[in-house]
């Protein structure tokens, strides 16, 4: 029985080793870029990297829950844009007060997610198709609603400060970063301490077993897709606050990066596996890499190739760990 005991300890140990590997990848990247250009680790640039992580990180958090269930959400980029547009419309056209407009925008994101979830559960659509439809629909609606023009929040100077204001007056430490940290903590609690996290993994691990255990799988799934939409809505808030406007054409390709962050962070696209800290580190890896390549003035056309190679190897090392 002593054996059993140590074993138990050892096993819980392996749960951390995943995070160790991707943290190591992150550290390696940072050290490499630091050697290439010491400015990389200047306070200003660290803040730049963190700020650049905000939108993608937010989308990645949202999509993570969906990925845990074994689903996928390729609409997060378009939904993010749509919710920022709707928030802008509420503010500038319908005369909502600012907090109401912001809340409305985030809720629109949640609503879009819920609709995808209904498509997945009640219409039996594969998540890829349900969210692809949602992507196409919100893309169109963003253009129609905004009349294909950016919606400016210039009338509300507060709006810009939501993301870009300095937290506690610390210069360079933008509110957006604080929001990302706060949302990450919320996501972490939701994931590891509450039913939504437990059920998202259970559904991803064996949906039928969950159903036969009396879990209302459909309702939870709709909730999880809605949660993903809410996160996209917050992403839209940060984005439009940074830009001072809602840009109806933005967001293309953001979903791939968000999914990539989750997968680098250890989520399996077949569901049942993954973690919130992993996802955030995944998002950080992507943005530090992109930032570093730009700082090194690597020609744009080569940057994507480098990112691709590094991502492949980051995941490779992580897979090697699992094999061991």
């Amino acid at each position, binding site marked *: 029985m002593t*054996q*059993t005991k140590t*074993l*138990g300890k*050892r*096993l*819980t140990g*392996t749960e951390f080793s995943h995070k160790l590997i991707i943290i190591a990848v992150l550290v390696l990247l940072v050290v490499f870029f630091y050697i290439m250009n010491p400015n990389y680790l200047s306070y200003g640039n660290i803040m730049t990297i963190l700020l650049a992580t905000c939108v993608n990180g937010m989308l990645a958090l949202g999509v993570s829950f969906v990925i845990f269930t074994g689903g996928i959400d390729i609409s997060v980029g378009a939904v993010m844009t749509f919710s920022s547009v709707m928030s802008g419309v509420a503010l500038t056209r319908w005369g909502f007060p600012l907090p109401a407009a912001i809340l409305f925008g985030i809720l629109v994101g949640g609503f879009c997610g819920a609709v995808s979830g209904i498509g997945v559960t009640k219409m039996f659509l594969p998540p890829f198709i349900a969210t692809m439809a949602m992507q196409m629909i919100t893309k169109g609606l963003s253009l129609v609603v905004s009349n294909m023009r950016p919606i400016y929040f210039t009338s509300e100077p507060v709006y810009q400060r939501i993301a870009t204001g300095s937290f506690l007056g610390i210069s360079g430490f933008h509110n957006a970063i604080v929001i990302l940290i706060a949302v990450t903590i919320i996501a972490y609690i939701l994931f590891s*301490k*509450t*039913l*939504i996290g*437990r*059920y998202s*993994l*259970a559904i991803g*691990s*064996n949906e*039928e*077993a*969950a*159903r*036969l*255990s*009396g*879990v*209302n799988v459909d309702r939870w799934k709709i909730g999880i897709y809605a949660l993903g939409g809410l996160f996209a809505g917050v992403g839209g808030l940060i984005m439009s606050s940074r830009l001072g406007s809602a840009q109806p054409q933005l967001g293309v390709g953001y979903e791939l990066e968000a999914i990539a962050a989750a997968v680098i962070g250890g989520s399996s696209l077949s569901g*049942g*596996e993954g973690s919130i800290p992993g996802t955030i580190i995944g998002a950080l890896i992507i943005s530090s890499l992109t930032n570093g390549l730009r700082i090194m003035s690597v020609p744009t056309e080569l940057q994507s190739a480098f990112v691709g190679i590094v991502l492949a190897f980051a995941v490779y090392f992580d897979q090697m760990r699992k094999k061991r």
Partner: protein
Amino acid sequence: MGNELIQMKDICKSFPGVRAVDNVSYGVRAGEVHALVGENGAGKSTLMKILSGVYTKDSGSIILNNEEVNITNVRDAQALGIVMIHQELNLMNHLTVAENIFFGREAKKKSRIILDSKRQEEETVQMYARLNLDVDPRAKVGRLTVAQRQLVEIVKALTYDSKILIMDEPTASLTSGEVEDLFRVVRALKEDGRAIVYISHKLEELKLISDRITVMRDGQFVATLNTEEASLDAIIQMMVGREVFETKQSPFEDTGAELALKVENLNAGRMVQDVSFHVRRGEILGFAGLVGAGRTETARAIFAGDGYTSGDIYVGGKKVTIKGPRDAIRAGIAYLPEDRRELGLALGMTVDENIPMASMSKFSSFGFIQFAKSAANSEKQRGVLDIRTPSIRQKVKFLSGGNQQKVVLAKWLTRNCDVIIFDEPTKGIDIGAKNEIYKLLNELAEQGKAIIMISSELPEILRVSHRVLVMCEGRITGELVGDEIDQNRIMNFAVKRNHAAGGQVG
């Protein structure tokens, strides 16, 4: 010993945290059936997976025909004539029966590129015919019942021209008729000079089919005996390391205890027709029948509303409408599916995450999970059911088959339902654990729960049930109570295909 066709010497194999096989030696002669027995998790499957190239051994040697061989993958083993029927079904559900059987050795037309499906199908039908079975070679395997799938596995293995055939619990979900057919074929293979490894928890079978028996315990070799010289009791004692007491079922006094579940004229598709029955608190109701009799379908119609078209269900006297598992569970019905891997468990999650799955409301408040409470319960269940796991934080997929079944049981014990439907509860479970499960069924009944046990193992039905219902082709064909329960009567009802005599039960 010297004349063994294949010998495994001093084999060791560890998994993270587990010494699955610890210095075990084992060998089979040509023309012999050598049984391998042991408790769940004793390391039987692991040992044989090493032989068939699924796992690589940590140390030890394998000697075939007095020559050491190196087996690193399945194809190496196949090339040496070693073929294994796996305990867990390893079939491709989207492919047809014929495609599965010939998988990896597809028949091709003269061009050697184009596949010859027709020939494969014809040969499949012939292979089945050797087992006295009929088959549609084009049926998708995913549509078959578990038992039919197991037959596909067996037929597939038989089509290999193997020198050494490893059968890991091939009869776990077969009925006695099919088992007999299988044994006939096994004997023919034996006559033919093949070496056969036979793993089973059905110890009665060993007398019928095996020549020698090797017992393993906790990954270690215990003994090898000649079957004629071995007594069942001795084997059991070697397996378990202690004595096992068989409890005889005491008759259930139908003193008008409260009706826990009553089903009237239930219809669900072709396989459930006009099924009516009841079960009282404290009673164990056995559901017997041949494979495909519709017992699983009946249970699922009650529990999950599958294919349900008409009929009334009363729980504790109250009529309930069941559209899905949630309704059933709320009404107090639990169901342990026969296919635990596909339906019962989240394999990638831990023991502690699976056990509370059906009762999360008990282990959460305001959506927050109460981890300490859940862990306490899981530890308790682990103790009660003797679940062999290094820790409740072990992932279920790393447990042996029998222990996985216990986790499913623990899940429903935690939920504490009034009516519990067990579908083949001891499939793949070792004799010691089986006895524990029987004991548990009795205890649950004594606590006033109503138990329905679907089983294709007649001895089990005979031993545990207070009352037995027999199904055939979707209808209840007979009911037996107390002393009436015997093998012949059950078999008579089980093949009663004319529907004249209804097994109507009030």
